[in-house]
């Protein structure tokens, strides 16, 4: 047989002359384009304007550009070196603890025949339903050097000393790490599920032992997932205010966020210095994102780890099964039973004390009665509900439109839009709060000191998360479903209303509930923006802490957890899959 030359490629006929710019604009000026413009304006306003004001106000002195704010913030006796070390140590330590715990548990969950798997998923709901501020408060009840239950009930009788002190960097790392571990767990479960088990099986067939497979195959393939989870843990720890605020301020252990808060509570308020800290924090967070991007630069080669889910053969743990199972129970006790239990216990006491016959006898529902009769509690609940529902609705509407533009069209500007909508994920809550304060203290709009400023803040903070939910719903939907509606004669609005929105609705609803829930517990931007009359539940809890009303705090906390459990349960009943799975930043 011989080979003949392939047919010559067809020579293209010259294309028609380009149309006039005006004609092109007229042809492009369809509803979608107007929509993109509007979405771009809203998103840009939310994401960029506050940062602009923050930078401008920080660098502007009495005479033009000035670095005096930085000098005040970082120079002299500000002990900024210690603060930087504390911040980095706290963020890295918490990320490491959360990531290692979460990854090990995820591996155990997906790949082994360990029992009690339900407990791990129950524990993964904790960060959703127990806000950070309550989690930190619960650990004060457990790990306070003088009254903490771990010291008084366990260690003092055994060793005669009270070695556990939650008011330290290690204590902060412990609490923050445990609170974030479930997020890492969920991210890594998804990653392990999406890995083709035949990649590991072929290594085993090549003669590699189980540990070698883990080290040479599994972990390298997990690298992209590990890096993006690590970034998320790092940024969330860095911007956490609750834990350093409750556990660090007591002993003068400052991190960026608590420092900003401290500066703003001092008199006279030095906005410049606070801005300088905020910019420092933003720079570290941005550096983390850039570094994760650099580490991920080869990640495209790891496409085997995405796509459909697999059901791998479970590893028979054999004799170790009992020990691993005990470890799972231990984890559940530490992350769920102890913190929630101690909150409930404390809420029933007049004065916090270790369990004893005397303490049990004084148990009462007085705290709850007090909360019910506290007018401020009802105001706070109402405000939290308004804000949660408002932010969830605004964000999901915006995210639905923006993600449709980003995922489905090739309109110009969609990449910029995508980037803009994701920017707020690296803006720590406290920084955003400060930046918004800068904006609305100067802009002559009656927004500062109202609920509206909180709404703007929540919308900005949770837009990236809303985008995750909406764009994954849009991506999962086959493009042909939309095209078939078009071919059937449906106009664009008809297709959007009758096909796109109904099909994306479960994802959008899931995002709505998620944002409602996280808005409820938001503290780090609220703490700078609320004003009397505009308290929300998390602020109320914070105030109880500052006033030393620990048992009232516990009672409010238990009510708040109950409300959040109800919301999450309702979401499940509505058929929405709520989880932190879409919570994958970076």
């Amino acid at each position, binding site marked *: 047989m*011989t080979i003949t030359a392939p*047919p010559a490629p067809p020579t293209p006929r010259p*294309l028609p002359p380009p149309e006039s710019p005006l004609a092109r604009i007229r042809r492009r000026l369809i509803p979608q384009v107007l929509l993109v413009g509007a979405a771009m304006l809203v998103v840009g306003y939310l994401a960029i304007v506050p940062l602009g004001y923050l930078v401008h106000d920080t660098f502007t002195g009495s005479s033009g550009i000035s670095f005096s704010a930085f000098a005040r913030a970082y120079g002299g006796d500000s002990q900024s070196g210690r603060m930087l070390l504390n911040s980095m140590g706290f963020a890295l330590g918490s990320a490491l603890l959360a990531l290692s715990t979460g990854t090990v548990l995820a591996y155990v969950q997906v790949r082994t025949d360990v029992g009690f798997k339900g407990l791990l998923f129950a524990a993964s709901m904790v960060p959703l339903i127990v806000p950070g501020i309550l989690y930190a408060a619960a650990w004060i009840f457990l790990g306070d050097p003088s009254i903490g239950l771990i010291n008084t009930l366990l260690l003092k009788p055994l060793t005669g000393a009270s070695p556990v002190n939650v008011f330290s960097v290690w204590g902060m790392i412990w609490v923050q790490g445990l609170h974030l571990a479930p997020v890492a767990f969920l991210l890594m479960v998804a990653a392990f599920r999406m890995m083709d088990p035949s990649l590991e099986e072929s290594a085993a067939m090549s003669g590699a032992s189980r540990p070698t497979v883990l080290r040479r195959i599994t972990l390298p393939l997990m690298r992209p997932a590990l890096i993006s989870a690590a970034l998320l843990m790092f940024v969330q720890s860095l911007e956490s205010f609750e834990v350093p605020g409750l556990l660090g301020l007591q002993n003068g252990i400052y991190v960026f966020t608590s420092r900003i808060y401290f500066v703003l509570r001092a008199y006279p308020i030095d906005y410049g210095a606070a801005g300088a800290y905020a910019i420092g924090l933003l720079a570290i967070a941005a550096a983390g994102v850039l570094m994760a991007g650099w580490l991920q630069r080869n990640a495209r080669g790891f496409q085997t780890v995405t796509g459909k889910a697999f059901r791998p053969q479970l590893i028979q743990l054999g004799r170790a099964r009992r020990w691993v199972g005990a470890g799972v129970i231990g984890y559940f006790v530490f992350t769920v039973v102890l913190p929630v239990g101690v909150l409930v216990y404390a809420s029933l006491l007049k004065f916090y004390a270790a369990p004893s016959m005397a303490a049990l006898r004084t148990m009462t529902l007085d705290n709850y009665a007090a909360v019910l009769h506290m007018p401020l509690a009802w105001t706070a609940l109402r405000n939290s509900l308004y804000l949660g529902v408002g932010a969830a609705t605004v964000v999901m509407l915006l995210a639905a439109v923006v993600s449709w533009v980003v995922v489905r069209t090739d309109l110009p500007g969609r990449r910029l839009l995508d980037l803009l909508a994701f920017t707020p994920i690296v803006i720590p809550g406290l920084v955003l709060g400060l930046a918004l304060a800068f904006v609305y203290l100067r802009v002559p709009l009656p927004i500062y000191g109202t609920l509206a400023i909180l709404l703007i803040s929540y919308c900005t903070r949770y837009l990236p998360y809303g985008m995750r939910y909406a764009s994954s719903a849009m991506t999962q939907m086959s493009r*042909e479903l939309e095209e078939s509606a078009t*071919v059937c004669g449906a106009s664009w609005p008809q297709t959007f209303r009758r096909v796109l929105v109904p099909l994306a609705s479960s994802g959008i609803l899931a995002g709505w509930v998620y944002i409602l829930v996280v808005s409820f517990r938001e503290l780090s931007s609220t703490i700078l923006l609320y004003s009397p009359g505009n308290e929300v539940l998390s602020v109320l809890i914070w105030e109880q802490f500052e006033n030393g009303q620990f048992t009232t705090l516990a009672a409010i906390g238990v009510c708040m957890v109950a409300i959040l459990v109800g919301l999450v349960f309702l979401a499940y009943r509505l058929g929405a899959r709520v989880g932190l799975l879409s919570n994958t930043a970076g």
Partner: protein
Amino acid sequence: MLIVDSLRKSYGSTGPHRRPDDRERVFAVGGASFEVHDGELFTLLGPSGCGKTTTLRSIAGLERPDDGRITLTDRVLFDAARRVNVPASQRRLGMVFQSYAIWPHMNVFKNVSFPLEVLPRARRPRRAEIAERVERVLEVTELTDYADRSATKLSGGQQQRLALARALVIQPELMLLDEPLSNLDAKLRENMRFELKRLQRELGLTAIYVTHDQSEALVMSSRIAVMNKGSIEQVGKPREVYTAPATRFVAEFIGTSNFVTGIVASVRGEEITVDTVEGRMVSRGASIRPAVGSEVLLSIRPECVGLSVAPLSGRMNEWAGQVLTRAFLGDAVDHVVGVSKLEIRTRSNPTLSIEPGTRVSLTVDPDKVTLVPVN
């Protein structure tokens, strides 16, 4: 009647991925022209990436071609020169997608009634008429019993019929079918071929059918356009395309074939004699008239090669060779026979099975020797 005239579509020249070196753009379709007659099932056949789906989507209005003209009877659907581009939603065509694209949030009835419900108010039928028309279409596609069922609870074959019903309900002038059978398992696919063909014939539909499966194309089509690298290599009835391939690509893509190059030695009436490395071959009734001395390609289908252990008889178109390998296919047996440097594949009745290494003789009827032009 649909007329597609010099349709061209390239990727990389428009949209957000504009590259500076526009000359290197890839043509998905590089000047396709064809006509589809009324009542015909016209197939675009070719390997993946040959541009068949892009052509279909251009007709549907889901892609905007760079150049060319598409007209359906008296309607211009697309004309680059006059800047006409009717939106997909106003072309009033029926389309069946590869994934069926059944809307999971609607039941069977709602899926089918959708195209009627979104008609402009002036042309939208009354509710009772919509119901009547949907029921009629469901009856034709044998889905009447499933009208209230959720669309996701249908089997693969039923989903396929539902997609068809939805496309049929507006009684489109033209149906577009994008590999509609490729997601079905092998047995069901064979049944659906005949089912589809029957429907098309009974309803007198004009349809364009895209597939990469040559046997599907041969079974179903009125005519086939074989596409390769963005252009159409041959348009013809299934039998023509199979027995008289116009190019080597067509001969290779449709069925299997043995190729031998040669120089035309003489042309005497119907008989063309070609000199090949393995001697003189005679072809009778070829579809082309090559000049004496020009190079041609002989294409011989395996089933047209006679295989025997008897010695050469001395007649025309005979080769002596040795069996290299054989393969049992169930309904046939393939032998690969070495003839000096050539390897000739034969296909015969499964009762014939010759040990590798055996010396054999091959014969080919001159009527079965197809000549393919060498560019």
